[in-house]
């Protein structure tokens, strides 16, 4: 059996009521679901004996700019046992711009979520240390949002006093 079908089958048997959307573009397999289920699904994918997605490769977000639920979170997981890469997607609710942190499941998520917070201003609930990653703490903007100009905003980064 194809491993993609196996992932779906395992998820369906564990969470029968959950709505999962799958896409397969150029061999990249992606599952999209509602943000409420994020922690449950991640924990299951990591701890299930047959799936074992132990390595969280990458966490990022997409800003769609002109859409309800403008931010989408993207997670890339890799199963060392099955040599398979899986992408998870979930929309961030516009009213709160916040989502549960997965750093309790993969410790590598700590910095990756900090980076997303810095660049997109998405709040991660229950994150142990939510600070900016690259920009200084006093900086008011989130540079990777589409409304932030490429030139930067003059005066937004004060030079240190001599």
């Amino acid at each position: 059996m194809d491993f993609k079908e196996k992932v779906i089958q395992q998820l369906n048997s564990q969470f029968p009521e959950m709505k999962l959307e799958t896409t397969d573009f150029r061999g990249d397999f992606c599952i999209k679901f509602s943000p409420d289920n994020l922690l449950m699904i991640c924990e299951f994918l990591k701890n299930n004996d047959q799936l074992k997605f132990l390595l969280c490769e990458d966490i990022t977000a997409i800003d769609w700019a002109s859409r309800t639920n403008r931010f989408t979170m993207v997670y890339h997981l890799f199963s060392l046992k099955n040599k398979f890469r899986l992408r998870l997607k979930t929309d961030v609710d516009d009213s709160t711009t916040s989502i549960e942190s997965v750093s309790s499941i993969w410790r590598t998520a700590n910095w990756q979520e900090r980076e997303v917070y810095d660049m997109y201003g998405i709040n991660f609930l229950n994150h142990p240390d939510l600070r900016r990653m690259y920009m200084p703490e006093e900086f008011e903007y989130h540079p990777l949002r589409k409304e932030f100009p490429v030139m930067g905003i003059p005066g937004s980064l004060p030079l240190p006093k001599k």
Partner: protein
Amino acid sequence: MEKLTKNDVHPKIVQALLGADTTFTVEDALDNEMILNMGPQHPATHGVLRLLLRLDGETVIACVPELGYLHRGYEKMAENMGYLDFIPHTDRLDYLSPPANNVAYALAVEKLAGIEVPKRAQYIRMMMCELSRIASHLVAVGALAMDVGALTVFLWTLREREKVLDMYDVICGARFTTSYTRIGGVAQDLQKSTIIEIQKFIDELEKSLEEVERLLNSNRIFIERLEDIGVISYDDAIDFGLTGPSLRGSGVDFDLRRDASYLYYNEVEFKVPVYYEGDCLARYFVRMDEIRESAKIVTQVLDKLPSGEIMANNPKKVLPRKTEIYTKMEELIHDFMLVNFGINPPVGDIYQAVENPKGELGFYIVSKGEGHPWKLKIRSPSFVNIQSIPHMTKGYMVSDVVAIIGSIDPVMGEADK
């Protein structure tokens, strides 16, 4: 030494250093503890990495890395330029192995746009990747030795690396910022004389590696400064998302070249060196072994190098040759369209990861069918690897911190993007 003041350290960083429950400012006296600021300008931190260490005597209790001193906003810039224009910027990510970054990016865009690349070009790319791995690991080993006090090795490994850079120069006309790949192939073909020169370098490499090992492997100071230092266990290494030599030094048998094969790595034979101790010394051994395996791959690639084109024949997506642009009408039109309107890959998103010298370099590209990416995320191995420094340094001495940083071998150009 000047004392740190409140203006030097943001309160949130102090909080991270001391734990959430303490209310403390930098000026307050601690009983036996002190806060030491290391970097960003420090030769042993491999670029502009800043570490804040909380020390009890000489023992590290906590460590907070601060990044962003080299942040150039490449992800933002990528969203505002064409797919072809971003290639030179990939040189400046991991500046110790530019060709490997070029290849990673080109592979990602080709996957997105669905471009088939000729076999000869892919083989040349493979060779460039392995040459850059050799160059990068040579610097890593030399810098690690220098960090723990053996300066000679650094000079020797840099001399060898210089030869690789000279070969880059012959192959593509630049020593550092190679920009060698194009979407759909490589910029220039290999000459016969270059192949002979590369083979000569590979043949002589073993001798210089033995020289290096003679200085290090039986050097008591070197061994004692690295053995059982910065230990990270098998499970922790995976949990922290380590990749590359740092992961394989902890006993995890994972290499994207073999496990998620790209280019033509399935057609060449190589071993994936794995060491089980998880300390700095294991990571050093992994690198030395990987240099040898890379040398083997280069030899095989040169032996098997197929003949044929070096650019894909796909006029709507691949830039034509300059000589053809100046002489043929069709090519001129295609060039105009590609430069002005871009490749326009179909709507969708892809993730392409390659095994770089530092670890897994991944590009996640979201396309809306336009000439520039809607989003481009760089998954940089150094960034993720630096995250484990607080875990590795905990409980060791200040002088071990430099050894640990050296054994992880981060490059800040990549970590800060």
